[in-house]
């Protein structure tokens, strides 16, 4: 089920809310949790119930592994030690992910390298597998490190399936979520939380339905439909996708935060104005924050720990490898490997710059130049994130850096006619992607919004109920709902 659907907004969410708080008021301990779990499983299985057994089996398996880890707490030297159980758990989770997400990619590459003809497996990627797998790995590690001692299967089921964060995260720790469900203050309807929730939900819905879905048109035309792109079309295509990706994902996160708040649950922030970043390190501290934390704690740190005689160069190698893996986590394609590598290289360069080159060359990079480099680097890396294959990516990248195919808006023909002597053409400059002069205006406005306005989490912190905030919320809600006219899925659903 999609947050941006009529069924969710008008039926699922109100019904889940009212029944949940009714059950809370009856003093029944488990009934509200059972209700929320049932609603979450319905939410997950709405479009296809076929993967419900898979997620439930995965949850059951991880719960028993965590119970076993707690039980074998003191038996360190036997075969079934805590550490071995943790290894079994982690390997099983990664194995599940590899089977469903990477087997066909692996077979395709084997066929390509060895000219073999192994049949592809008939696998459909289960929704949210990348997220619930990571969250369960974190839970096992937390159990191993005695940070969590969850004995109730019902609680664990709720922790994994709680519908606002089940599909796309944020990736949360048990201790961030479950104490809130047990806190008696949260058993009652809280108008402050509902106000904040509705406010942030309306912003998220607007981001998704109005902004992301509008940019999606140009990105799809540029990447999937147009055979050739001119210079401006290529830049508009890549920028459209960069904005689509940000507003799509951060819109989802805003809606998730808002819905969770309505149930008196606070989930962590996942975006913090990433396009204001002035370096790649800064960018990853602002973009998909819970994934960045996971990469640092559970991929980068173990790689670093495995090195003997650690030095800065080895740490940089670990950074690069961690982001290579993170790139591949997004999807089974060489394009994601390139995306991960580019960000790995960016981070390594940024680290070396901060630690050595800045001092060595005595250059203090101007903030605006640093921002410009970062933004464009991210934008270029996103071309590989979006492209289905190398030809799609090279079509866009080549045109972004080719001055042979510049078409200038006919609006400027009178003033810039001399440019025609240099092979430049005047006319419909965004024709192949269905854009026009207004497209450029939208990109500029969007850039201004992401650079100079407070982000939704900052707005949430300063929110005060007033006539103006009510009008703004109503505008976002009504305008967005009136624009819901298709089943527009979220980009990260593919991962």
């Amino acid at each position, binding site marked *: 089920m999609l947050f941006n659907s009529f069924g969710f907004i008008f039926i699922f969410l109100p019904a889940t809310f009212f029944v949940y708080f009714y059950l809370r008021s009856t003093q029944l301990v488990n009934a509200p949790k059972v209700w929320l779990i049932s609603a979450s499983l319905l939410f997950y299985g709405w479009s296809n119930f076929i993967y419900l057994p898979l997620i439930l089996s995965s949850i059951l398996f991880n719960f028993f592994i965590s119970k076993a880890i707690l039980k074998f707490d003191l038996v360190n030297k036997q075969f079934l030690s805590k550490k071995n159980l943790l290894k079994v758990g982690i390997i099983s989770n990664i194995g599940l992910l590899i089977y469903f997400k990477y087997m066909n990619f692996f077979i395709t590459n084997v066929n390509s390298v060895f000219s073999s003809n192994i049949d592809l497996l008939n696998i459909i990627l289960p929704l949210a597998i990348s997220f619930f797998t990571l969250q369960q790995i974190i839970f096992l590690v937390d159990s191993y490190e005695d940070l969590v001692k969850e004995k109730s299967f019902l609680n664990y089921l709720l922790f994994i399936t709680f519908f606002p964060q089940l599909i796309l995260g944020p990736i949360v720790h048990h201790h961030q979520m479950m104490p809130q469900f047990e806190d008696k203050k949260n058993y009652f309807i809280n*108008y402050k939380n*509902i106000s904040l929730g509705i406010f942030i939900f309306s912003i998220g819905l607007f981001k998704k339905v109005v902004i992301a879905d509008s940019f999606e048109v140009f990105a799809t035309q540029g990447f999937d439909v147009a055979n050739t792109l001119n210079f401006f079309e290529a830049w508009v295509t890549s920028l459209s996708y960069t904005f689509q990706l940000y507003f799509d994902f951060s819109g989802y996160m805003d809606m998730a935060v808002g819905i969770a708040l309505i149930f008196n649950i606070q989930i962590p922030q996942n975006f913090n104005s990433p396009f204001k970043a002035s370096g790649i390190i800064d960018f990853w501290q602002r973009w998909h924050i819970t994934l960045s934390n996971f990469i640092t704690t559970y991929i980068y740190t173990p790689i670093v720990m495995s090195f003997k005689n650690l030095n800065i160069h080895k740490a940089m190698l670990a950074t690069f490898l961690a982001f290579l893996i993170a790139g591949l986590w997004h999807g089974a394609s060489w394009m994601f490997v390139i995306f991960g590598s580019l960000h790995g290289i960016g981070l390594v360069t940024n680290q070396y710059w901060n630690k050595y080159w800045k001092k060595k060359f005595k250059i203090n990079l101007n903030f605006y130049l640093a921002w410009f480099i970062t933004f464009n680097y991210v934008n270029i890396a996103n071309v590989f994130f979006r492209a289905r294959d190398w030809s799609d990516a090279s079509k866009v990248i080549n045109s972004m850096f080719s001055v042979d195919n510049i078409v200038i808006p006919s609006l400027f023909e009178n003033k810039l006619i001399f440019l025609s002597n240099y092979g430049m053409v005047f006319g419909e400059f965004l024709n192949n992607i269905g854009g026009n002069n207004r497209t450029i205006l939208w990109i500029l406005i969007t850039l201004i919004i992401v650079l100079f306005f407070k982000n939704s989490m900052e707005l949430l912190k300063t929110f005060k109920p007033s006539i103006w905030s009510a009008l703004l919320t109503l505008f976002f809600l009504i305008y967005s*709902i009136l624009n819901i006219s298709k089943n527009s899925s979220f980009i990260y659903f593919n991962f």
Partner: protein
Amino acid sequence: MNSKIEYQTFVISILTFCISFFGIILFSMVIIDPLKIFHKPLKDSINFMKGEMRYQVAGIINNYEFDSIILGASMLQNTSAKDATDILQSSFVNLSVGGLSMGNRSLMIDYALKSKKLNHVITTLDGFADSENKSNFSFLYNGTFLDDIKVYKTRRFVIDAVCQLSTIYVEIAYCKKRNSYDTSLELITEWYSTYDHKERFGGIENWLKLENNSQIIDQLEEIAEQANCIKNNYCEAIKSSTYDNAIGIFDKTILKLALENSDTKFHLIFPPYSRLKYALLKQSNSNEFESYITTIKNIVMRSEAIENISIYGMDHLTFSDDISNYKDPSHYHPRVNQEMLKAIKNNHFLLTSQTLNSYIEEIESLAKNYDIFLITNQIESYLRGLEI
């Protein structure tokens, strides 16, 4: 002015406003009901939305009286329901939709059969390339009221509703332009009277003298290319055909419906495209012509034992030779539609196991011997003119 309010007031005002706003819209949409899905119009002069036929057909089936339907694609859009009613002595309505695939046609016919007792169903045997997306409108044909309401979440219908409501008082130019209040039930499907279509009949010169869009130019280029390959005897075999899956689709759609509704007479017509079209296919050794012949044979043989199916073939008639009866290689003049009704009335041009072989021999021979170059030379010369 102090604009601060309590959290509770904030929540209640937002929810009250949203529920009222969307409730009123939904209620108004059901009351105005521009597609007539739930009831007949509030005012008789409010007509049907020709541009939204995939949705509009559901409304007509739900709320109008008839006992026979004509439901095909563009080949049947010019068939007059009034003529059909007079000739076949049954109360007909024409619900044909341009470009409607066989799959979607059968969805609509099935819904009509479940909603009403039908005496006759007339359709053409075309639209087998079943690639048309139906997810946008199929929910209107499942008989579920709650699903029907979903049609009015589409913003353009909200605008149409406002337009239709306004016609009670005044006709707004914008609404007229967007066809919000379009046309009567008798004329809802026909396209012949449109200037751009009507003027193309009368000969190849009329195809070429009007303004041709890129789609028509592409079609003319394809004809020229086929003619050129025939002339130079180097035609490459084309493997894909619009009839590739025709038999399977026929079995799953019309044949199934006919078997389930033995009291309804199904009149199935192979639409008589121009001789030029078939001659180009035949003479260029395209497998499409062979597939067409195979399809005719299979459909006739499959339907032979089913009493409520009649199949008609008119490709052998002389009007197909005369390109002035066509506005393009496929679409014929409305008098052909009238001939179809007469054929049904008089049991003419029926394809049965007895008539099948002679019919196929005749149309193969006509296609093989037709002089395509009288027409294609003019097209080539026109295209050369465009290049200059």
